[in-house]
């Protein structure tokens, strides 16, 4: 593992039953690096990033996040999860809590932050995602784009070093995608380490430091965006790009 790597996956293997979903995956992510992961559905990209905060368990190989190796050790898992924020395709806001409560919940209960301080923090995060006026509404009263921005604010409130995005715009209407991507671009420009699984190639071209293309559980190609889009090496990548860019 190189010194500045904040995430390091080495020969990671995982099976769902007999299905070999991750096959010898190797990935090094440096601090402040922005990685965009793409690939056809079922290629294991979501599974890979879900292994990084242990929502899925890998069966072989090693995953080290910020110097902590992910094993069965529950304390290590909790520590990694405090470092790593995650945004989901389906937002996964807590529907029984208001927007503000969604954001303050983890700081208050996990970080033991005083309530007033947590609320102030929540308002700051809502300013960052540009919806402070929605603080007292419930998730069910918001549009998809607004919900996803609340989900981002909720993750950011834990002050993570790394953010994982699992197809954050796939469940959104076209006109809402932009408002979420804008927030993510701001975040990237602010120096956050990010791994983003997405099919938004425009976004990838703007912010990615490196593209990772996966197929059938393997990383097929890793390249700078420039090389990836203009001059990919593998035929599988070319086929994928021709389909996704010309649809």
């Amino acid at each position, binding site marked *: 593992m190189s010194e500045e790597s904040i995430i390091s996956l080495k020969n990671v293997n995982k099976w769902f039953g007999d299905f070999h979903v991750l096959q010898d995956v190797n990935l090094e992510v440096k601090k402040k690096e922005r990685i965009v992961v793409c690939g056809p559905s079922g290629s294991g990209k979501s599974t890979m990033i879900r292994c990084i905060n242990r*929502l899925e368990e890998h069966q072989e190989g090693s995953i080290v996040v910020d110097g902590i190796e992910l094993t069965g050790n529950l304390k290590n898992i909790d520590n990694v*999860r405090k470092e790593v924020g995650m945004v*989901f395709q389906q*937002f996964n806001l807590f*529907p*029984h809590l208001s927007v503000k409560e969604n954001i303050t*919940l*983890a700081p208050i209960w996990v970080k033991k932050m005083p309530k007033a301080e947590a609320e102030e923090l929540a308002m700051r995060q809502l300013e960052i995602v540009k919806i402070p006026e929605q603080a007292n509404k*419930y998730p069910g009263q918001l549009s998809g784009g607004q919900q996803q921005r609340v989900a981002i604010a909720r993750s950011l409130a834990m002050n993570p070093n790394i953010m994982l995005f699992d197809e954050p715009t796939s469940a959104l209407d076209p006109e809402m995608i932009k408002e979420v991507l804008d927030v993510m671009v701001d975040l990237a420009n602010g120096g956050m380490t990010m791994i983003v699984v997405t099919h938004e190639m425009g976004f990838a071209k703007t912010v990615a430091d490196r593209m990772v293309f996966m197929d059938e559980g393997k990383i097929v190609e890793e390249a700078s965006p420039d090389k990836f889009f203009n001059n990919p090496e593998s035929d599988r990548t070319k086929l994928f790009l021709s389909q996704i860019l010309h649809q």
Partner: protein
Amino acid sequence: MNEMNEVRKPPVATTGIIGWLRINLFFNWTNSLITLFVIYCLYQFIPWILDWTIFSADFKYNYLGEKITNQEMCSRNLDPENGGACWAVIYVRFYQFIYGFYPKVEVWRVNIAYAMLALALLPLLYAKLPYRKYFLYFTYIFPVIAYFLLNGGLGFTEVSTNKWGGLLVTLVLGCTGIALAFPIGIMLALGRRSKLPVISMMCTLFIEFIRGVPLITLLFFGMVMLPLFLPEGIDMDGLVRVLVAVTLFQSAYMAEVIRGGLQAIPPGQYEAAKSLGMSYWRMNLLIILPQAIRISIPPIVNTSIGLFKDTTLVIIVGILDLLGIGRGTLADTNWLGLSYEIYFFVSLVFFIFTFGMSRYSLYLEKKLKTGINMGAD
């Protein structure tokens, strides 16, 4: 249409009382016929039931103006043409219906316990109660106070539970059963879904065993077998034994109801909670259970009402609850043949409590639903 033409109103015939009547009661000729038939039945039934229960009924004195002390003095037994219900039996036996055989000198303690029960329920019924937090503290310690108050100890003379009866027993069994079964049921439901095979298997076994056995069997089990499991010299109170049986029975049902609610929570909720670094218990207490319990309110109240009524089964192990006192009264030669009055009264008391529970569940559902969309987006 010109621009002055503001909002168009719906046709008169579909709004207001007349609209409602037309749509719901007289929509077409079959509908109208059914409506008329039902009105005719009500017209026949309501005056009769009002006459029987109130206008021709005896409350304390019969139609001759004598104070009723046994069934022969009831108006309807003196003159079958002339009498309705004979509520005097309830009046004379009222003390037993409400307190059982609790000593009269000590009965103020039961009255205080009843009043405290109402006070303890208050913060649960009114979310907007001022100083609700302090009322809730009282609700939590109420069971302890009630125990010493009713049973004795701490300077109160002891009143053995075999003197308890009537509504007192019904409420003690119902409230304790429901209140204890709720947390135990939650633990069992979480346990059954646990990833640890030993815990999951134990909880499943417990639930399936208790649920597979009739409550009567459990009551006999509590009465006869429970003492065998206890160390020598420890004598368990009869009512406590029954309480254990009732609570176990109810918690198995409660566990399954709550498990149903847990299953309705999308996996994304667990993942979001975990990704924020929450531990198992925090995730369940703060995220999962509040949603699961909210979904399960109707079945939770349903099983609770079921238990409240099932407490009447304790009669078979010799404990006299409200219904038991009623049946005891019927066996008294002084009051033979007044089963209508007694069963009517017992039913009415049960109905008041269960209807209250049912209304409370509707209120909760309404209150908790506001502004919340439980769907994925």
